[in-house]
């Protein structure tokens, strides 16, 4: 199962990277989101999968799955959401100001 998930993560990262390298701002945000999903999956995989019951003490079992990666991922999800929201609004504003969402047109190596 872990190997399968890691392969999936690799594919997601590839797709995300390809999207990030494209010209449209929206696609870049899509790519970043895909990569963050992949990273979350990788995090939970690193704790080992399906080794026990959910980390709730009321379950009364001998073994729980690793709770630490779950706590880390929870934090990561929220932060990722905040950043995505900000970037999206930023992209929206950039479009309003410059009339474009094409990264090639938004490039700035002239004297600013």
């Amino acid at each position, binding site marked *: 199962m872990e*190997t399968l998930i890691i392969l999936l993560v*690799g594919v997601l990262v590839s797709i995300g990277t390809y999207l990030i390298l494209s010209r449209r701002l929206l696609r870049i945000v899509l790519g970043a989101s895909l990569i963050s999903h992949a990273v979350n999956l990788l995090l939970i995989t690193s704790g080992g999968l399906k080794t026990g019951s959910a980390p709730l003490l009321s379950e009364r079992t001998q073994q729980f799955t690793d709770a630490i990666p779950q706590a880390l991922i929870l934090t990561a999800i*929220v932060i990722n959401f905040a950043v995505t*929201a900000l970037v999206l609004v930023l992209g929206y*504003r950039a479009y309003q100001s410059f009339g474009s969402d094409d990264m090639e047109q938004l490039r*700035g190596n002239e004297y600013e």
Partner: protein
Amino acid sequence: MAIFFIFIFLPFLSAILVPFLYKYLNRLVHTGWFVLLAPLFILIYLLQYIPSIAAGETYQYTLSWIPTLGINIVTYVDGLSLLFGLLISGVGVLVIIYSIFYMSKTREALHQFYVYLLLFMGAMLGLVFSDHLLVLYGFWELTSVSSFLLIAYWYERKSSRQGALKAMLITVIGGFGMLAGFIMLIMMADTYSIREIIAQVDVIQNHALFIPAMLCILLGAFTKSAQFPFGIWLPDAMEAPTPVSAYLHSATMVKAGIYLVARTTPIFGGSSVWFWLVAGVGVITLLYGSLSALRQTDLKALLAYSTISQLGLIMSLLGVGSLAVYFGPGEKGSLFTVATFAALFHLFNHSTFKGSLFMVVGIIDHETGKRDIRYLSGLMQVLPVTFTIAMVGAFSMAGLPPFNGFLSKEMFFAAMTELTHVSAFGLDRLGLIFPVIAWIASVFTFVYCMIFVFKTFGGKFHPEKLTRKVHEASFGMLFAPIVLCLFVVLTFFFPNVLGKYILIPALTSVLPMMPISSTDLKISAWHGINTELLMTIGVVVLGFLLFRTAKRWIRLFRNYPQTLTLNHLFNKALPSMEKRAASLTNRYMTGSLRHYLSYIFSFFVMLLLGSLLLNYGLKFDFSNDASITLFDAGLVLVMLIAALTVLLTNHRVVAIVALGAVGYMVSMFFVIFRAPDLALTQMVVETVTTVLFLLCFYHLPKLKKDIERIPFKLSNLIISISVGLTVTLLALSANGHKLFEPITAFFERAYELAGAKNIVNAILVDFRGFDTMLEISVLTIAGLGVYVLIHQRSKRRKQDETE
């Protein structure tokens, strides 16, 4: 002890006072008179060291600066530093007297001039008296900086600024080289003190860093002393006011490199590399300088090249003198001790006659308004005193009796001919080169000295070519060059007084291992008819013939292609370096986000994949994997399809919805991986994110709303696949290789420690509550950011509307 430091730092102290004196007293008295006090006191103070130093004593004073790092201002007074100290303060006194009459009280910014000059003087004194290598380096750079400021004194002129920049670039590059050499020396000897390094010379000579340290230090010495090919800054430095040229660029600063070579001779002297570099470069510089001087029509440029040439002469003598270290005490060694003696003697002589010659040019410039020999002639009638000074100086430089240049030139020839009898360092085959080059260069030296005197002062006087009415300079202006000329003549008649009291102690510090007796080193004007005298007669005869026929061949020099000069190469190299740097930067700093991301991703892949492969990190272990059910495989498949849809879809809404699908699949995974809190959060967040995406999409430009495929790029594909591959390989190698047991067991005691049954929540708010607090801050900041981004915009729009 304290008195010594007060005197050495007197220039710095008075530099602080100068602006105040200038502000309040300059209307009454020329500021220079106050400035004069500093070198005068130093000179008088240093003079009283002469008897005890001549008796063989040395003095050491220490002023603690950074004692924890072993950096202290250690000064060491011996013959060599005293010789330089006397030159610096003595010529300093004369130059300041001269500058009082040269620099206008009303038109010039005198406070700046004297502050820079005093800074320079203090730096130079600090340089020659330092025993600590790093402190020496500090003063060395301070001389570069103050020289830079002085060259650009008339900063509104472009040529001044360019000359200053060139001098700065070249001397500072050399200075850095020297610093590297010093650090190597310090590493080899494990001490900062020059004297302690000299004491350990046996250890250093067999060290691997010996040659690199030598080359680096020589780079510093050669750039500062304008040796070939670094001499090009000196002629351009002639844009400085003439007192500066006389002081810095003939008598003191350009001799700092000479000082360094003389100082380090006991360390490096015995090696053949040192001999060939110092003597060889010196002789080449001698020839190059004397040939280039012939081409000049500007008097100061002529003197600048002649300075280069004479510095080459001194340098080559030091190189030849280093053979004394090789041969050691004995008959052979003492023959070359004379060469070092001649170097020090000529060093003193050059300071006297070159200082007076520069002052002469300053007077000519001041009185006629011209420095170009094509406009000047017949000044003998109107400037008789100046003419006499110029003649004394120039004849001394040419090596004619009864002036001091004759004596040192004879000794120079003697040292050079001596080289033909040496059988070390390959000199048995090449030894003849030295006297031949030296003789040819001396012939040309003679010719340009004659040009200097007779083109300016000889012939008919043409007042119509000149802009000013010419009359003899004031006595104040003539005083300093007259004093220098007196030294030129007196040294010829009484050379041994100077030799006994100043030069022999200096020689003892350059060659501490040699037994030096003053009887061997008697300088005599007449010692029978020998090779040296015949060479001098040859120089005079051939030089005179060449001077008389100069009109016929000098054109040959003047028409020498400008494109082949070192100056031209430097001037071309600098802009072309700038251009190449700019084009290189423009080539990769494209401003395109995609390019920068490609660099980042490629670097990341190369570094991680490279280290993974090089360190044999690829080890897979699948034994602990959990089983795969059909349900899992189905989820993976759905997720893959959704992700590929995001990538390949033609329509943006489809992409957004597919991304939502990926998110929900992740949340499904969290369910089957037994993470209920994650599944909940992921579900909610994914929903809100998708809404945000759709909102953003709604606002996208109408123009660009047309549905389009992302253009395919092979390089992007390669980069993204390799990034994915790297992540996969890293994760696979890491998985299944647990180095130690996880610490989860501790958190499973959540109920007894924190009173919570949900372990994840206990971690978030109790065990690791800080993370959560800051994560809340992130959310708050993002929320504020979103608010500000939208609100500011509408506010400005309102403002635009009201306007």
